[in-house]
C-alpha cells in the first residue's frame, strides 16, 4: 500500500507531524510513503491510501525541534529522510547525538541552513513606514525573499521585537501581518514591493561613515552579507562607491601632514585638574607583585588601636575592593572573632604583604603565597603602620605574618597560641590564618584552635584596658 500525504504551505510541520505519527506508530516503512507539498504534481500516486489511525508513540524531544526546522527546507527528500530518522530514533535516544551518522548529519545540515536563513531574515528585513494619518499605532511594511519556507518559524521573533507597532512582511508566497499583537499568515503570491522611507537617508549616512576605508575586507563582508540580499537593503548601493574610494581616502590621510593643534587645545590642557598622586603605597615597586594587582590594600581600623591583626596578603575580593579582610577568609574571621568575644572594631587589621599575588587561570585568579623576598620588601609598609597605629600587641595570623613580625620562620602549628617577642619589641600572639580552615580537611579542629587563640587575644585586650 502506498501513502501520499500532501502537506499544506502553511502548517506544513504540523501536517507532517500528524501524518508521520499515524504512519510510524503503525510501523509503515519509509519506502511506502510518497511525501509532497500541496500543489506539487500529484504524480503516480494521486492521493494515496487513507492514513491509519495513530497510536501512542514516544520520540526524543530533540527530534521535534529538529523536525520543525527541516520541514521548512525546500530540499527534495527532506520530509522522507526525516521520516526515516524518526523510525530509527524510536527507542534509540542516542541516535540524534551521533553526528557521524550520515542521515543525522544530513538533517543537521538542513537544520543549519534553516537557522542561517532565519538569522539572515532577522538581520536583513528592512521596514518602511506606512502609517496612515489618523492611525493610533505606527505601521511598517517589508518585502523579503527567504530561501526556505521559514515565514511561520520567524514571525514570533518579529512579534516579540516590535510590540508597540503594527507590521507586515510580504514574501513571494506568504504575507504575515501583525496587528495589535496578533500574528496571522496568508498564503498568497506577491511580486516584489518597491518601497522607501525617508529615514533611509540617515541610515545610509551612518553606513557610509561607520565604514573604515583603511581596512577594506570585501570578502568578509560578502560572506556574511551575500549579494542576493543587496537589492532589498537601502544601504547596499553605496558599497561600490565606498570600495572604489577607499584607497584614495586612506592615501589622503597618510599624505596629509600632521596638523597643528588648534589654539584652544593648550588652554584646555592647562586647565585640566592634576590627578591626585596615588600615594607611596600604590606606587610601590619594591617587588614585582604590584604590577599585576589592581591596587595596594593598606590596613583599616582606628589609629591608636591596642591590637593590630596581621594576615598574609589581600585576596581576590580585597584586591577589587581595596579593603582588607572582606573576602571569604575575612568573613570567616569576623564570625570567629564575634564567637570569641573579640571586639574587631577595636583592632586595626592589615596584611604582611599589601598587593595580591596570583597566577591567572582563565577567568579566575589563583592565590600564590608571597616569596620571602617579597614579604621582606613589603615590611617597610607594615613597620610604618605599626609606628602610626602604636598597638600594644600584635596578632599574627598564619606563617607569613609570624615570619615578618618575629623574624622566625619555623613551623607555625608548634608555636600557635604562644606569645613571642616581635622585632619591634612588641608581644606577638601567634595563630593560624582563617583561610587554612577554608582549605583544610580537618577544618573543625583548626576552627576550634583559632577561636581559642582569638579568646586569648580578647583576654589580653581586656587586661590592657583594665590597666
Amino acid at each position, binding site marked *: 500500500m502506498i501513502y501520499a500525504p500532501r502537506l499544506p504551505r502553511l502548517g506544513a510541520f504540523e501536517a507532517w507531524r500528524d501524518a508521520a505519527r499515524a504512519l510510524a506508530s503503525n510501523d509503515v516503512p519509509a519506502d511506502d510513503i510518497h511525501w509532497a507539498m500541496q500543489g506539487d504534481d500529484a504524480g503516480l500516486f494521486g492521493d494515496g491510501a487513507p492514513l491509519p489511525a495513530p497510536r501512542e508513540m514516544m520520540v526524543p524531544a530533540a527530534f521535534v525541534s529538529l523536525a520543525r526546522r527541516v520541514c521548512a527546507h525546500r530540499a527534495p527528500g527532506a520530509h522522507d529522510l526525516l521520516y526515516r530518522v524518526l523510525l530509527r530514533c524510536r527507542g534509540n535516544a542516542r541516535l540524534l547525538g551521533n553526528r557521524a551518522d550520515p542521515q543525522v548529519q544530513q538533517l543537521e545540515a538542513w537544520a543549519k541552513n534553516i537557522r542561517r536563513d532565519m538569522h539572515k531574515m532577522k538581520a536583513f528585513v528592512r521596514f518602511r513606514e506606512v502609517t496612515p494619518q489618523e492611525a493610533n499605532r505606527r505601521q511598517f511594511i517589508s518585502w523579503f525573499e527567504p530561501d526556505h519556507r521559514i515565514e511561520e518559524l520567524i514571525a514570533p521573533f518579529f512579534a516579540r521585537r516590535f510590540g508597540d507597532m503594527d507590521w507586515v512582511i510580504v514574501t513571494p508566497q506568504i504575507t504575515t501581518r501583525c496587528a495589535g499583537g496578533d500574528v496571522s499568515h496568508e498564503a498568497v503570491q506577491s511580486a516584489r514591493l518597491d518601497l522607501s522611507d525617508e529615514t533611509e537617508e540617515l541610515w545610509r549616512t*551612518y553606513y557610509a561613515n561607520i565604514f573604515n576605508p583603511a581596512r577594506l575586507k570585501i570578502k568578509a563582508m560578502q560572506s556574511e552579507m551575500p549579494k542576493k540580499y543587496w537589492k532589498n537593503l537601502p544601504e547596499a548601493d553605496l558599497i561600490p562607491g565606498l570600495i572604489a574610494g577607499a584607497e584614495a581616502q586612506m592615501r589622503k590621510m597618510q599624505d596629509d601632514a600632521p596638523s597643528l593643534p588648534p589654539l584652544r587645545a593648550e588652554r584646555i590642557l592647562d586647565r585640566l585638574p592634576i590627578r591626585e598622586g596615588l600615594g607611596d603605597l600604590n606606587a610601590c615597586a619594591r617587588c614585582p607583585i604590584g604590577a599585576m594587582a589592581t591596587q595596594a590594600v593598606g590596613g583599616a581600623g582606628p589609629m591608636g588601636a591596642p591590637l593590630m591583626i596581621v594576615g598574609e596578603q589581600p585576596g581576590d575580593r580585597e584586591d577589587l575592593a581595596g579593603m582588607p579582610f572582606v573576602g571569604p577568609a575575612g568573613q570567616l574571621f569576623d564570625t570567629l572573632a564575634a564567637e570569641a568575644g573579640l571586639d574587631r572594631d577595636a583592632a586595626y587589621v592589615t596584611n604582611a604583604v599589601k598587593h595580591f599575588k596570583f597566577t591567572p587561570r582563565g577567568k579566575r585568579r589563583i592565590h600564590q603565597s608571597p616569596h620571602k623576598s617579597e614579604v621582606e620588601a613589603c615590611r617597610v609598609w607594615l613597620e610604618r603602620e605599626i609606628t602610626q597605629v602604636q598597638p600594644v600587641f600584635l596578632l599574627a595570623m598564619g606563617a607569613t605574618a609570624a615570619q615578618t613580625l618575629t623574624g622566625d620562620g619555623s613551623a607555625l602549628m608548634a608555636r600557635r597560641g604562644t606569645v613571642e617577642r616581635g622585632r619591634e619589641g612588641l608581644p606577638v600572639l601567634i595563630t593560624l590564618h582563617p583561610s587554612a580552615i577554608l582549605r583544610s580537611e580537618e577544618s573543625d579542629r583548626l576552627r576550634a584552635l583559632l577561636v581559642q587563640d582569638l579568646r586569648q587575644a580578647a583576654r589580653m585586650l581586656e587586661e590592657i584596658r583594665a590597666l
Partner: protein
Amino acid sequence: MAKMQIKEKLALLSDAAKYDASCASSGTTKRSSADGTGLGSTEGSGICHAYAPDGRCISLLKILMTNFCIYDCAYCINRVSSQVPRARFTVEEVVHLTTEFYRRNYIEGLFLSSGIIKSPDDTMADMVRIARSLRHDHHFRGYIHLKTIPDASPELIEEAGLLADRLSMNIELPTDAGIKAYAPEKNGDEIRRAMGRVQLRKEAAKERTHTGRRAEKFAPAGQSTQLIVGADGANDATILQSSTRLYSSYKLKRVYYSAFSPIPDSTAALPLIKPPLAREHRLYQADWLLRFYGYQADEIASAATDGMLDLEIDPKLAWALANRASFPVDVNRAGRDMLLRVPGFGTKSVARILSARRNGTLGFGDLKRIGALVNKAKPFIITRDWSPGGLTDAANLRARFAPPPEQLSLL
C-alpha cells in the same frame, strides 16, 4: 556657525566612533515587547544587521554623544589637539536615531561613547540621561552599550549599569608605559580599579536580598575593553598577558583588539601605518584559545618568536607544531582538554566527537561528517582507520600549512 543638521552630526559622530571595534549585542538578559507596551527584544544571540566593506558587522548604532574632548590621546581622532570639526548630539537626537533605526530593523540597539567634555562626571551624566530616556520614556528594550568614563562618580556608574546591558572602558594601550606616553590624561590603575568596582557590583546583583527577591540586574552583558595593536611597541606576548590579567581579574566578557588604523588629522607623535590586520586576526585567534580552549598566555607565547605570533599559521597550529611530543592524539580515547588542542578541531567538533563516541569508535570519515577540518588534523590524530606514522614528526610539516613563499616579481 550655522546650526548643524542631524544628518551632518551623524556623519561626524559615527565617523568618530568607528575606531571602537566592539559591536556585540549578545549575551544579555532575555527581554521582549510582546506585551505591546514597548519596543525591542533581546534573546541571547546578537544579530548583525549589515556589514560594511571593511568586513565589520553593524549591529548597533555606534556613535559618540560628542567628539569634543579635553584629553589628548595621540592615537585618537577626537583628541583636543586635532582639527576635526566638532559636533554634539542632543539627548532627543540620539533617542530619535536609536528608536527610528530600531523600528526599521537596522540595528539591535545603541553603543554610545563620548569625548570627555567639561569633566568626567558631566559627560557620564549626559550619557546616562540618554539611556534613561530610552528606557523610561520610550520603553526601549533593545540593547544598550555605554562607554563608561573611569573617573565618573560611583552613583553615575551605578545608574549606567542598571540601564545598560554592557559597560566598557577602553584601556587602548597594552602597557601602563604606553598609556603614559600616548594618553597622558588617562591612567591604567584608575581604569582597572573602576573595572574592579563594576565587577564587585555585578556580583552583588547576583545575590538575593534578605527578602529572597532577586536584585536588579547590573550590566547583564558584562564589561569589555579594547587594546590598540601596533601603535606602541608592545608585542603580542605582552598584549596577551595584558588580556589574561583583565579576563582573570575583572571577568571581562571580551577584550577587543583594534589594529591601529590611519586617522584623519594625525599627530606627529604616532606616524600612520597600514593597519596590521593579519596581526589583529592572530591575536583574536589567540584570545579564543585563552577563553575557550584552555590555553595559558605563556603557552601561546612559547610558540611565538620574540613575543610575536606567527603571521603565516594560526597560534593553535603553531603550538601543536612546537609541542609535537603531545601528538598524535587518539580521537577515540583522549579527553576533552587534549581534543581541544588538535588543530582543525573546534569546540563544536569536540563536543560532537565526545557525543558520537558513545555510539561506537570513530573513523576518519566520521570526523569529516562531524565537521572537523580533517586535512589540518590529519598529522595530529589517530582514529580507528588512520594513523599518521612519521607525519607528526616530519621536518616539513609546517610547510604543508604555511602559504608558499611568494616569488619576487620583477618590476
